[in-house]
């Protein structure tokens, strides 16, 4: 039996994040799987958790 205890509040800035590289503000389109920082160009893998955008990782994970 899986619990459905999930945060119920919708928040105005659920889709707004800061770039981890340059701290620029990023507004993520709903459901986007990838997103590139408009300021520094780092490309991120995106996740969505209860409607909130999340950076999962960079696409080019620390290439040499």
């Amino acid at each position, binding site marked *: *039996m*899986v*619990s*459905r*205890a*999930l*945060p*119920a509040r*919708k928040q105005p800035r659920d889709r707004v994040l800061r770039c981890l590289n340059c701290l620029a503000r990023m507004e993520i389109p*709903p*459901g986007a799987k990838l997103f590139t920082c408009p300021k520094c160009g780092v490309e991120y893998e995106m996740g*969505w958790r*209860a*409607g909130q955008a999340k950076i999962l990782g960079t696409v080019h994970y620390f290439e040499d």
Partner: protein
Amino acid sequence: MQKMILIDYTRCTGCRLCESICSLYNEGVVNPRRAKIKVIRWEWEGLQIPTLCQQCQDAVCIAVCPVKALTRDEGLGYVKVNYERCIGCRVCIAACPFGGMSFDPVKSKVIKCELCGGDPMCVKFCETKALQFVDAASADVVKKRELGAKVLMAIGKAEEAQVQ
């Protein structure tokens, strides 16, 4: 329209804020033992279930009370205790199938959920909406909507499924 406190135990996180607020609002002290709602926890199974008086339409407690201290308020839809009459015999505790009635050693009388005069505090403070105060006749619609939300999430429409 009569309302009821609808319990969804799958949303309960076991925080017990409802117990603290209930006892504080109704008895003036934070004491889960004097709350009218109790979260039963099976700690090693990860289950937590809020339980409280179900405000039965045809209440057993009313039927057994020897001094007619219990009556049903048809306005708000709850069973209330007349403390002038209650003698603390606790037959109602024995009779209730749900444990909805309990004994308060400070008052030396029985206590039960009386819906906080129409604005239940436990519902107000329950963040996950494990407790909702809804119209009794359409309580099923709440659960049916939530089933719909589950379906939406399963087909990948998580944002639309956001429960308000």
